Protein backbone atom coordinates (compact mmCIF):
# COMPACT_ATOMS: atom_id res chain seq x y z
CA UNK A 1 0.00 0.00 0.00
CA UNK A 2 2.79 2.40 0.95
CA UNK A 3 4.78 1.39 -2.13
CA UNK A 4 1.80 2.22 -4.34
CA UNK A 5 1.40 5.62 -2.66
CA UNK A 6 5.11 6.31 -3.07
CA UNK A 7 4.98 5.43 -6.77
CA UNK A 8 2.03 7.78 -7.19
CA UNK A 9 4.07 10.50 -5.48
CA UNK A 10 6.85 10.10 -8.06
CA UNK A 11 9.29 8.38 -5.69
CA UNK A 12 11.98 6.94 -7.96
CA UNK A 13 13.48 5.08 -4.97
CA UNK A 14 10.19 3.20 -4.67
CA UNK A 15 10.32 2.32 -8.37
CA UNK A 16 13.79 0.81 -7.90
CA UNK A 17 12.57 -1.05 -4.80
CA UNK A 18 9.55 -2.46 -6.62
CA UNK A 19 11.78 -3.55 -9.49
CA UNK A 20 14.29 -5.25 -7.20
CA UNK A 21 11.59 -7.10 -5.31
CA UNK A 22 9.28 -8.16 -8.11
CA UNK A 23 11.10 -8.04 -11.46
CA UNK A 24 12.34 -11.66 -11.20
CA UNK A 25 8.71 -12.85 -10.86
CA UNK A 26 7.61 -10.62 -13.73
CA UNK A 27 10.44 -11.85 -15.94
CA UNK A 28 9.67 -15.49 -15.11
CA UNK A 29 5.95 -15.03 -15.85
CA UNK A 30 6.76 -13.55 -19.26
CA UNK A 31 9.45 -16.11 -20.04
CA UNK A 32 7.20 -19.08 -19.25
CA UNK A 33 4.84 -17.94 -21.99
CA UNK A 34 7.34 -16.69 -24.54
CA UNK A 35 10.35 -18.98 -23.96
CA UNK A 36 12.49 -16.16 -25.27
CA UNK A 37 14.81 -13.94 -23.25
CA UNK A 38 14.70 -10.78 -25.37
CA UNK A 39 10.93 -10.87 -25.65
CA UNK A 40 10.56 -11.52 -21.90
CA UNK A 41 12.84 -8.55 -21.15
CA UNK A 42 10.65 -6.35 -23.35
CA UNK A 43 7.63 -7.45 -21.35
CA UNK A 44 9.41 -6.60 -18.08
CA UNK A 45 10.14 -3.13 -19.41
CA UNK A 46 6.55 -2.66 -20.59
CA UNK A 47 5.16 -3.75 -17.23
CA UNK A 48 7.33 -1.43 -15.13
CA UNK A 49 7.01 1.56 -17.45
CA UNK A 50 3.25 1.06 -17.35
CA UNK A 51 3.29 0.82 -13.54
CA UNK A 52 5.39 3.98 -13.24
CA UNK A 53 3.26 5.94 -15.71
CA UNK A 54 -0.07 4.87 -14.24
CA UNK A 55 0.44 3.72 -10.64
CA UNK A 56 -3.20 4.52 -9.90
CA UNK A 57 -4.26 1.57 -12.05
CA UNK A 58 -3.10 -0.77 -9.31
CA UNK A 59 -6.01 -1.50 -6.98
CA UNK A 60 -4.80 -3.09 -3.73
CA UNK A 61 -8.31 -4.44 -3.15
CA UNK A 62 -7.90 -6.72 -6.17
CA UNK A 63 -4.61 -8.35 -5.19
CA UNK A 64 -1.04 -7.94 -4.05
CA UNK A 65 1.59 -6.05 -5.99
CA UNK A 66 3.43 -9.16 -7.26
CA UNK A 67 0.15 -10.73 -8.33
CA UNK A 68 -0.86 -7.57 -10.18
CA UNK A 69 2.49 -7.31 -11.93
CA UNK A 70 2.75 -10.95 -12.94
CA UNK A 71 -0.82 -11.00 -14.24
CA UNK A 72 -0.02 -8.02 -16.46
CA UNK A 73 3.18 -9.74 -17.60
CA UNK A 74 1.28 -12.91 -18.55
CA UNK A 75 -1.39 -10.95 -20.39
CA UNK A 76 1.21 -8.99 -22.31
CA UNK A 77 3.11 -12.15 -23.15
CA UNK A 78 -0.06 -13.91 -24.33
CA UNK A 79 -0.86 -10.83 -26.43
CA UNK A 80 2.57 -11.14 -28.04
CA UNK A 81 1.91 -14.81 -28.82
CA UNK A 82 -1.55 -14.08 -30.20
CA UNK A 83 -0.11 -11.37 -32.36
CA UNK A 84 2.54 -13.81 -33.52
CA UNK A 85 -0.09 -16.46 -34.32
CA UNK A 86 -1.94 -13.92 -36.48
CA UNK A 87 1.31 -12.96 -38.16
CA UNK A 88 2.16 -16.60 -38.91
CA UNK A 89 -1.31 -17.25 -40.33
CA UNK A 90 -1.10 -14.09 -42.47
CA UNK A 91 2.31 -15.18 -43.64
CA UNK A 92 1.00 -18.63 -44.59
CA UNK A 93 -1.85 -17.06 -46.52
CA UNK A 94 0.36 -14.57 -48.32
CA UNK A 95 2.77 -17.40 -49.25
CA UNK A 96 -0.10 -19.33 -50.79
CA UNK A 97 -1.26 -16.29 -52.72
CA UNK A 98 2.30 -15.40 -53.76
CA UNK A 99 2.41 -12.03 -51.95
CA UNK A 100 5.74 -10.67 -50.74
CA UNK A 101 6.47 -10.76 -47.03
CA UNK A 102 9.10 -9.18 -44.81
CA UNK A 103 11.64 -11.39 -43.10
CA UNK A 104 11.13 -11.99 -39.39
CA UNK A 105 13.77 -10.96 -36.87
CA UNK A 106 15.72 -13.68 -34.98
CA UNK A 107 13.59 -13.16 -31.86
CA UNK A 108 10.42 -13.35 -33.94
CA UNK A 109 11.66 -16.61 -35.39
CA UNK A 110 12.21 -18.08 -31.92
CA UNK A 111 8.78 -16.99 -30.76
CA UNK A 112 7.27 -18.24 -34.01
CA UNK A 113 8.91 -21.62 -33.48
CA UNK A 114 7.38 -21.87 -30.01
CA UNK A 115 4.01 -20.77 -31.37
CA UNK A 116 4.20 -23.20 -34.28
CA UNK A 117 4.71 -26.08 -31.84
CA UNK A 118 1.66 -24.98 -29.89
CA UNK A 119 -0.39 -24.61 -33.10
CA UNK A 120 0.54 -28.13 -34.34
CA UNK A 121 -0.38 -29.63 -30.97
CA UNK A 122 -3.74 -27.87 -31.07
CA UNK A 123 -4.44 -28.95 -34.67
CA UNK A 124 -4.02 -32.57 -33.62
CA UNK A 125 -6.95 -32.12 -31.22
CA UNK A 126 -9.38 -30.93 -33.93
CA UNK A 127 -12.15 -33.24 -35.22
CA UNK A 128 -10.87 -35.29 -38.17
CA UNK A 129 -12.95 -33.44 -40.80
CA UNK A 130 -11.65 -30.04 -39.67
CA UNK A 131 -8.08 -31.21 -39.05
CA UNK A 132 -7.86 -32.64 -42.57
CA UNK A 133 -8.93 -29.44 -44.29
CA UNK A 134 -6.66 -27.27 -42.07
CA UNK A 135 -3.66 -29.49 -42.85
CA UNK A 136 -4.38 -29.33 -46.57
CA UNK A 137 -4.93 -25.56 -46.56
CA UNK A 138 -2.20 -24.48 -44.15
CA UNK A 139 0.46 -27.18 -43.99
CA UNK A 140 0.29 -28.44 -47.61
CA UNK A 141 -0.12 -24.97 -49.07
CA UNK A 142 -3.25 -25.77 -51.14
CA UNK A 143 -5.91 -23.19 -51.98
CA UNK A 144 -9.36 -23.72 -50.45
CA UNK A 145 -10.63 -24.97 -53.85
CA UNK A 146 -7.74 -27.44 -54.16
CA UNK A 147 -8.13 -28.59 -50.56
CA UNK A 148 -11.88 -29.05 -51.11
CA UNK A 149 -11.22 -31.16 -54.24
CA UNK A 150 -8.71 -33.36 -52.39
CA UNK A 151 -11.11 -33.82 -49.47
CA UNK A 152 -14.03 -34.41 -51.81
CA UNK A 153 -16.23 -31.67 -50.36
CA UNK A 154 -17.65 -28.42 -51.78
CA UNK A 155 -15.40 -25.34 -51.49
CA UNK A 156 -17.97 -23.55 -49.28
CA UNK A 157 -17.98 -26.48 -46.85
CA UNK A 158 -14.17 -26.41 -46.75
CA UNK A 159 -14.20 -22.71 -45.90
CA UNK A 160 -16.79 -23.11 -43.15
CA UNK A 161 -14.82 -26.01 -41.63
CA UNK A 162 -11.66 -23.88 -41.66
CA UNK A 163 -13.52 -21.03 -39.94
CA UNK A 164 -14.79 -23.39 -37.25
CA UNK A 165 -11.33 -24.91 -36.88
CA UNK A 166 -9.63 -21.51 -36.50
CA UNK A 167 -12.11 -20.48 -33.79
CA UNK A 168 -11.40 -23.71 -31.90
CA UNK A 169 -7.66 -23.29 -32.36
CA UNK A 170 -7.78 -19.79 -30.94
CA UNK A 171 -9.66 -20.99 -27.84
CA UNK A 172 -7.34 -23.97 -27.39
CA UNK A 173 -4.22 -21.86 -27.83
CA UNK A 174 -5.41 -19.28 -25.28
CA UNK A 175 -6.06 -22.02 -22.75
CA UNK A 176 -2.78 -23.82 -23.35
CA UNK A 177 -0.77 -20.62 -23.18
CA UNK A 178 -2.45 -19.57 -19.97
CA UNK A 179 -1.83 -23.00 -18.47
CA UNK A 180 1.83 -22.90 -19.45
CA UNK A 181 2.19 -19.51 -17.76
Amino acid sequence: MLLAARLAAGDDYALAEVFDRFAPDVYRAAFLVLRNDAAAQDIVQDVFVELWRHPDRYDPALGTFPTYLTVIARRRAVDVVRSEVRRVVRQERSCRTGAADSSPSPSEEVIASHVADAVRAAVRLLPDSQRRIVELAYFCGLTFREAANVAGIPEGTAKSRVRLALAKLEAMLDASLLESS
Partner: protein
Amino acid sequence: MTGDAGGQALPAGLRERVLSASLQARAAGRPEPAPAEISPAEAFSRTADAFHFTLGLLSEGQWAAHALRDLDVQGLVGHLTGVEEDVHRSLTGDGDPEVAAASHVGSTQLAADRQAGRPAALTRAEWRRAADRTIELVRTADPSAEVAVHGMRFPLGLLLIIRALEIWVHENDIREAVGLPPSAPEPSTLSLMTGAAANLLPQAAIRASLDDPVQVHLVLTGPGGGTWDVAVGQSPSAPAAVTIVADAVGFCRLAANRITGAELDPYITGDQDRATAVLAAASALALD
Protein backbone atom coordinates in the same frame (compact mmCIF):
# COMPACT_ATOMS: atom_id res chain seq x y z
CA MET B 1 19.51 -16.52 -23.26
CA THR B 2 16.79 -19.04 -23.91
CA GLY B 3 15.65 -22.06 -22.00
CA ASP B 4 14.86 -22.37 -18.32
CA ALA B 5 13.92 -19.25 -16.36
CA GLY B 6 13.99 -20.99 -13.01
CA GLY B 7 16.91 -18.92 -11.70
CA GLN B 8 16.28 -15.70 -9.81
CA ALA B 9 18.99 -13.64 -11.53
CA LEU B 10 17.76 -11.16 -14.10
CA PRO B 11 19.56 -10.60 -17.38
CA ALA B 12 22.45 -8.16 -17.02
CA GLY B 13 21.54 -4.56 -17.75
CA LEU B 14 17.80 -5.09 -17.53
CA ARG B 15 17.45 -3.09 -14.29
CA GLU B 16 19.21 -0.04 -15.71
CA ARG B 17 17.30 -0.29 -18.97
CA VAL B 18 13.90 -0.54 -17.30
CA LEU B 19 14.51 2.23 -14.75
CA SER B 20 15.87 4.53 -17.44
CA ALA B 21 12.90 3.89 -19.74
CA SER B 22 10.49 4.44 -16.85
CA LEU B 23 12.02 7.77 -15.84
CA GLN B 24 11.96 8.91 -19.45
CA ALA B 25 8.26 8.14 -19.56
CA ARG B 26 7.60 10.08 -16.35
CA ALA B 27 10.12 12.25 -14.56
CA ALA B 28 10.97 11.45 -10.94
CA GLY B 29 9.20 13.63 -8.42
CA ARG B 30 6.10 14.22 -10.47
CA PRO B 31 2.90 12.86 -8.93
CA GLU B 32 0.58 10.71 -10.96
CA PRO B 33 -2.18 11.54 -11.46
CA ALA B 34 -0.90 15.12 -11.43
CA PRO B 35 -3.38 17.76 -10.33
CA ALA B 36 -4.17 20.59 -12.73
CA GLU B 37 -1.62 23.38 -12.44
CA ILE B 38 -2.94 26.62 -11.04
CA SER B 39 -1.33 29.95 -10.19
CA PRO B 40 -0.53 30.93 -6.60
CA ALA B 41 -3.16 33.68 -6.93
CA GLU B 42 -5.75 31.06 -7.89
CA ALA B 43 -4.69 28.89 -4.94
CA PHE B 44 -5.12 31.86 -2.61
CA SER B 45 -8.51 32.64 -4.11
CA ARG B 46 -9.74 29.04 -3.76
CA THR B 47 -8.52 28.83 -0.18
CA ALA B 48 -10.24 32.12 0.64
CA ASP B 49 -13.48 30.75 -0.82
CA ALA B 50 -13.19 27.58 1.27
CA PHE B 51 -12.54 29.65 4.40
CA HIS B 52 -15.50 31.91 3.68
CA PHE B 53 -17.68 28.85 3.16
CA THR B 54 -16.65 27.40 6.53
CA LEU B 55 -17.40 30.69 8.28
CA GLY B 56 -20.88 30.48 6.75
CA LEU B 57 -21.45 27.18 8.54
CA LEU B 58 -21.01 28.69 11.99
CA SER B 59 -23.86 29.56 14.30
CA GLU B 60 -23.70 32.92 16.09
CA GLY B 61 -22.68 31.19 19.31
CA GLN B 62 -19.82 29.28 17.69
CA TRP B 63 -18.04 32.54 16.88
CA ALA B 64 -17.32 32.88 20.59
CA ALA B 65 -15.60 29.48 20.85
CA HIS B 66 -11.96 29.62 21.82
CA ALA B 67 -9.84 29.05 18.70
CA LEU B 68 -6.15 29.94 19.13
CA ARG B 69 -3.90 31.71 21.64
CA ASP B 70 -6.21 34.13 23.44
CA LEU B 71 -8.50 34.45 20.43
CA ASP B 72 -12.02 33.23 19.93
CA VAL B 73 -13.18 32.37 16.41
CA GLN B 74 -14.20 35.96 15.76
CA GLY B 75 -10.87 37.30 16.97
CA LEU B 76 -8.99 34.79 14.81
CA VAL B 77 -10.90 35.93 11.73
CA GLY B 78 -10.02 39.49 12.76
CA HIS B 79 -6.36 38.46 12.94
CA LEU B 80 -6.58 37.23 9.35
CA THR B 81 -8.21 40.52 8.31
CA GLY B 82 -5.26 42.29 9.92
CA VAL B 83 -2.82 40.11 7.97
CA GLU B 84 -4.58 41.00 4.71
CA GLU B 85 -4.40 44.69 5.60
CA ASP B 86 -0.65 44.44 6.22
CA VAL B 87 -0.22 42.57 2.92
CA HIS B 88 -2.12 45.40 1.19
CA ARG B 89 0.25 47.93 2.75
CA SER B 90 3.22 45.94 1.55
CA LEU B 91 1.85 45.49 -1.97
CA THR B 92 0.98 49.15 -2.38
CA GLY B 93 4.14 50.42 -0.68
CA ASP B 94 2.09 52.15 1.98
CA GLY B 95 3.79 51.61 5.32
CA ASP B 96 6.82 49.77 4.02
CA PRO B 97 9.32 49.11 5.66
CA GLU B 98 7.26 49.21 8.87
CA VAL B 99 5.08 46.29 7.78
CA ALA B 100 8.10 44.35 6.56
CA ALA B 101 9.46 43.99 10.07
CA ALA B 102 6.15 43.93 11.93
CA SER B 103 5.26 41.05 14.23
CA HIS B 104 2.72 38.69 12.68
CA VAL B 105 0.69 38.53 15.89
CA GLY B 106 1.38 41.99 17.33
CA SER B 107 0.64 43.85 14.14
CA THR B 108 -2.74 42.19 13.75
CA GLN B 109 -3.86 42.36 17.36
CA LEU B 110 -5.86 45.55 16.84
CA ALA B 111 -7.80 43.97 13.99
CA ALA B 112 -8.49 40.96 16.21
CA ASP B 113 -9.53 43.07 19.19
CA ARG B 114 -11.91 45.26 17.23
CA GLN B 115 -14.11 42.25 16.45
CA ALA B 116 -15.26 41.97 20.07
CA GLY B 117 -18.96 42.64 20.38
CA ARG B 118 -19.51 42.93 16.64
CA PRO B 119 -22.10 40.89 14.79
CA ALA B 120 -20.36 37.84 13.30
CA ALA B 121 -21.68 38.70 9.85
CA LEU B 122 -19.78 41.99 9.98
CA THR B 123 -16.52 40.23 10.88
CA ARG B 124 -17.05 37.72 8.08
CA ALA B 125 -17.86 40.43 5.55
CA GLU B 126 -14.86 42.54 6.59
CA TRP B 127 -12.51 39.60 6.16
CA ARG B 128 -14.03 38.77 2.76
CA ARG B 129 -13.50 42.35 1.57
CA ALA B 130 -9.89 42.25 2.76
CA ALA B 131 -9.22 38.94 0.99
CA ASP B 132 -10.88 40.22 -2.18
CA ARG B 133 -8.70 43.32 -2.03
CA THR B 134 -5.62 41.07 -1.87
CA ILE B 135 -6.84 39.11 -4.88
CA GLU B 136 -7.44 42.35 -6.76
CA LEU B 137 -3.99 43.73 -5.92
CA VAL B 138 -2.13 40.61 -7.03
CA ARG B 139 -4.13 40.08 -10.22
CA THR B 140 -1.83 42.27 -12.29
CA ALA B 141 1.26 42.04 -10.08
CA ASP B 142 4.50 40.31 -11.05
CA PRO B 143 4.52 36.96 -9.16
CA SER B 144 8.30 37.04 -9.00
CA ALA B 145 8.46 40.50 -7.39
CA GLU B 146 9.69 40.31 -3.81
CA VAL B 147 7.28 41.23 -1.07
CA ALA B 148 8.31 41.82 2.55
CA VAL B 149 5.79 41.41 5.32
CA HIS B 150 5.94 40.23 8.94
CA GLY B 151 9.62 39.41 8.82
CA MET B 152 9.32 37.38 5.61
CA ARG B 153 10.69 38.39 2.23
CA PHE B 154 9.50 36.16 -0.57
CA PRO B 155 8.49 36.39 -4.21
CA LEU B 156 4.81 37.31 -4.38
CA GLY B 157 3.85 33.89 -5.76
CA LEU B 158 5.45 32.08 -2.82
CA LEU B 159 3.97 34.55 -0.36
CA LEU B 160 0.48 33.85 -1.72
CA ILE B 161 1.01 30.12 -1.27
CA ILE B 162 2.19 30.66 2.30
CA ARG B 163 -0.82 32.89 2.92
CA ALA B 164 -3.13 30.23 1.48
CA LEU B 165 -1.51 27.73 3.85
CA GLU B 166 -2.09 30.08 6.78
CA ILE B 167 -5.76 30.60 5.90
CA TRP B 168 -6.34 26.87 5.52
CA VAL B 169 -4.59 26.15 8.83
CA HIS B 170 -6.72 28.74 10.64
CA GLU B 171 -9.82 27.37 8.94
CA ASN B 172 -8.98 24.08 10.62
CA ASP B 173 -8.29 25.81 13.94
CA ILE B 174 -11.85 27.08 13.70
CA ARG B 175 -13.24 23.74 12.57
CA GLU B 176 -11.59 22.05 15.54
CA ALA B 177 -12.86 24.75 17.90
CA VAL B 178 -16.49 24.23 16.89
CA GLY B 179 -16.38 20.48 16.33
CA LEU B 180 -16.44 20.43 12.53
CA PRO B 181 -14.43 17.76 10.68
CA PRO B 182 -11.06 18.89 9.32
CA SER B 183 -10.74 20.00 5.71
CA ALA B 184 -7.96 19.44 3.18
CA PRO B 185 -7.04 21.81 0.37
CA GLU B 186 -8.07 20.57 -3.04
CA PRO B 187 -5.13 18.84 -4.84
CA SER B 188 -4.04 21.71 -7.11
CA THR B 189 -3.75 24.06 -4.15
CA LEU B 190 -2.24 21.41 -1.89
CA SER B 191 0.36 20.67 -4.56
CA LEU B 192 1.60 24.26 -4.36
CA MET B 193 1.59 24.12 -0.57
CA THR B 194 3.59 20.89 -0.38
CA GLY B 195 6.09 22.25 -2.91
CA ALA B 196 6.56 25.40 -0.87
CA ALA B 197 6.88 23.50 2.41
CA ALA B 198 9.44 21.11 0.89
CA ASN B 199 11.50 23.80 -0.80
CA LEU B 200 11.55 25.95 2.35
CA LEU B 201 13.04 23.10 4.40
CA PRO B 202 16.62 24.45 4.05
CA GLN B 203 15.55 27.86 5.36
CA ALA B 204 13.56 26.25 8.14
CA ALA B 205 16.66 24.25 9.08
CA ILE B 206 18.72 27.43 9.28
CA ARG B 207 16.07 29.07 11.45
CA ALA B 208 16.10 25.99 13.68
CA SER B 209 19.94 26.01 13.83
CA LEU B 210 20.09 22.56 12.28
CA ASP B 211 23.69 22.50 11.12
CA ASP B 212 24.33 18.82 10.42
CA PRO B 213 24.00 18.30 6.67
CA VAL B 214 21.26 15.96 5.56
CA GLN B 215 20.27 14.94 2.05
CA VAL B 216 16.53 14.52 2.37
CA HIS B 217 14.50 12.43 -0.06
CA LEU B 218 11.05 13.69 0.86
CA VAL B 219 8.04 11.77 -0.41
CA LEU B 220 4.63 13.26 0.29
CA THR B 221 1.81 10.88 -0.48
CA GLY B 222 -1.79 11.43 -1.48
CA PRO B 223 -3.38 13.91 -3.89
CA GLY B 224 -1.24 17.06 -4.04
CA GLY B 225 1.88 15.18 -2.98
CA GLY B 226 5.16 14.65 -4.79
CA THR B 227 8.82 13.87 -4.23
CA TRP B 228 11.67 16.27 -3.54
CA ASP B 229 15.40 15.91 -2.96
CA VAL B 230 16.43 18.66 -0.58
CA ALA B 231 19.80 19.39 0.99
CA VAL B 232 19.56 20.90 4.48
CA GLY B 233 22.21 21.86 7.03
CA GLN B 234 25.16 24.21 6.72
CA SER B 235 28.05 22.17 8.11
CA PRO B 236 30.63 21.08 5.50
CA SER B 237 30.80 17.51 6.84
CA ALA B 238 29.52 14.61 4.75
CA PRO B 239 25.73 14.61 4.59
CA ALA B 240 23.60 11.81 5.94
CA ALA B 241 20.97 10.51 3.55
CA VAL B 242 17.44 10.03 4.78
CA THR B 243 14.17 9.17 3.12
CA ILE B 244 11.03 10.55 4.74
CA VAL B 245 7.64 9.36 3.50
CA ALA B 246 4.62 11.12 4.94
CA ASP B 247 1.10 12.19 4.14
CA ALA B 248 1.01 15.43 2.12
CA VAL B 249 -1.70 17.09 4.21
CA GLY B 250 0.00 15.98 7.40
CA PHE B 251 3.31 17.46 6.29
CA CYS B 252 1.64 20.84 5.68
CA ARG B 253 0.16 20.66 9.17
CA LEU B 254 3.64 19.89 10.49
CA ALA B 255 5.11 22.87 8.61
CA ALA B 256 2.37 25.03 10.15
CA ASN B 257 3.29 23.76 13.63
CA ARG B 258 -0.05 22.06 14.17
CA ILE B 259 1.33 18.56 14.70
CA THR B 260 4.69 17.14 15.75
CA GLY B 261 6.98 14.93 13.72
CA ALA B 262 5.88 11.95 15.82
CA GLU B 263 2.21 12.74 15.16
CA LEU B 264 2.94 12.88 11.46
CA ASP B 265 3.91 9.20 11.79
CA PRO B 266 6.33 9.16 8.85
CA TYR B 267 8.07 6.18 7.28
CA ILE B 268 11.80 6.83 7.57
CA THR B 269 14.86 5.11 6.15
CA GLY B 270 18.43 6.17 6.80
CA ASP B 271 19.63 8.08 9.84
CA GLN B 272 16.58 8.21 12.13
CA ASP B 273 17.99 10.93 14.39
CA ARG B 274 18.76 13.24 11.49
CA ALA B 275 15.35 12.63 9.97
CA THR B 276 13.68 13.43 13.28
CA ALA B 277 15.72 16.64 13.52
CA VAL B 278 14.65 17.65 9.99
CA LEU B 279 11.01 17.07 10.85
CA ALA B 280 11.39 19.08 14.05
CA ALA B 281 12.91 21.94 12.05
CA ALA B 282 10.16 21.86 9.41
CA SER B 283 7.88 24.04 11.51
CA ALA B 284 10.51 26.69 12.25
CA LEU B 285 9.06 29.11 9.68
CA ALA B 286 5.49 28.69 10.90
CA LEU B 287 3.55 31.82 11.72
CA ASP B 288 0.85 31.70 14.34
